[in-house]
């Protein structure tokens, strides 16, 4: 399947889109051109294959408890998947905390199916032909919110608190290079090499932190969720390792998600 995907990508690229030229240019139209390329690719996105796999995993009886995930409550009631992704992170009474999509899926895999955190945290990210189950499941869930407006809740006191904690983390400068998230994502019109950096403190641009994830990343031909993106950001910030489905992920996702509220979520996307 992976070879078919790779071949498909090469066919599209060979069809003439001058992506290497586009990337080499410093012209701001490069970002525009890539967005157009992305829109074309999203019409037949390899992510769809992972949505299908995720749906199978959601419905199949698995794990030591031989149960499916169909009783998993993502915030709209047990088993309700449609519209769930765009209202996460949110407060859950059963755990007494704010949880994001992947953290909640892992919670359900542990409590309903009997899987262990240690096993899931061992290889949490896609590599080569390996795609972890939570990644496929989150991709499926996210696809069921396609076309809906981002509506991360800010009604429970813990949700409000989580937003503010996320904001403090976003601005926290540390590590040998003194970086915070804001170092790269706190101003307009910044670019690392040729990669544009949206300013996530601004609502219009904050939508780009939510949009396109989970995303099929062409570099490596793998499916990634925001768990991967945030963990790798902190690696590049020269911080220690951010544990799988941590509360820091959640707080940041609340901050970014709320800033993006109101924008239409177009479903799993495609990345460079």
């Amino acid at each position, binding site marked *: 399947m992976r070879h078919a995907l790779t071949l498909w990508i090469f066919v599209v690229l060979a069809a003439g889109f001058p992506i290497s030229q586009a990337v080499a240019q410093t012209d701001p139209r490069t970002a525009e051109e890539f967005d157009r390329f992305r829109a074309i690719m999203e019409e037949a996105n390899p992510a769809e294959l992972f949505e299908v796999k995720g749906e199978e995993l959601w419905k199949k009886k698995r794990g030591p408890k031989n149960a499916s995930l169909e009783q998993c409550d993502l915030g709209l009631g047990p088993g309700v998947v449609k519209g769930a992704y765009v209202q996460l992170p949110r407060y859950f009474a059963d755990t007494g905390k704010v949880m994001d999509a992947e953290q909640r899926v892992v919670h359900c895999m542990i409590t309903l199916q009997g899987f262990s955190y240690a096993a899931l945290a061992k290889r949490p990210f896609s590599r080569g032909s390996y795609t972890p189950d939570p990644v496929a499941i989150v991709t499926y869930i996210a696809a069921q919110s396609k076309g809906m407006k981002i509506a991360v809740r800010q009604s429970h006191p813990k949700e409000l608190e989580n937003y*503010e904690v996320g904001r403090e983390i976003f601005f*926290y400068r540390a590590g040998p290079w003194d970086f915070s998230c804001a170092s790269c994502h706190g101003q307009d019109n910044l670019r*690392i090499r040729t990669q544009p950096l949206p300013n996530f403190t601004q609502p219009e641009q904050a939508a780009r932190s939510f949009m396109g994830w989970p995303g099929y990343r062409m570099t490596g031909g793998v499916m990634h969720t925001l768990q991967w993106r945030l963990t790798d950001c*902190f690696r590049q910030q020269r911080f220690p390792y951010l544990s799988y489905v941590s509360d820091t992920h959640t707080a940041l996702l609340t901050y970014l998600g709320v800033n993006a509220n109101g924008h239409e979520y177009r479903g799993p996307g495609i990345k460079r």
Partner: protein
Amino acid sequence: MKNALISAGVVVAVIAGCATTQGSDPERQREAVETMKQSFHARGIAKMNRLNQDELQRVCTDTRDQPPANVQKRLEAAEMAEIKLPADGKFLGGWKRGEKIASIGRGMTWRDKPGRTSRGEPNGGGCYNCHELSPKVTSFGSVGPSLRQFGKKRGYGVDIQKYAYMKIYNAKAFSICSTMPRFGPSGTLTEQQMKDLTAYLMDPKSPVNK
């Protein structure tokens, strides 16, 4: 009565100011630090002490990179004192080596080794991540200002060589909340590497000055 009204007015103004400012909230920051301490773990060369802020990081975080002038001056002086100039008094290394160092953005992450990248090379300076330098390299970032014709524009004198070396060693000595990392104090780059980068900026033969 008048004094009470003035005091009340000041209090209201301060509260109103707090409500609209996006500055740091001490209580939430405490929670944020607690959350991060539980969320991260040490891996490879990236130990948990990387989460501990020094005074510069704390001040720049709290003031959102806009500290009061007196604090700025004091901290910049402290950073200046951290700069170690080369013992031989020479600031220029080799610009060709400098170009390589400027092009490599790896090193210092939990994947890397002490003083070397995961690929076994010396740490890079990552200059092209943020700056325009040689006209031949079009894949440059915009986080920092263009350094095109750095020497050509400023003159090739020893005083400018020294300034460039110091800036590379510790950019915060010149602008306390700069985004640019402190390559010297952090141990990211060696003295020779920083001399090579200085040459990349200041050698008349360097492509940067074409």
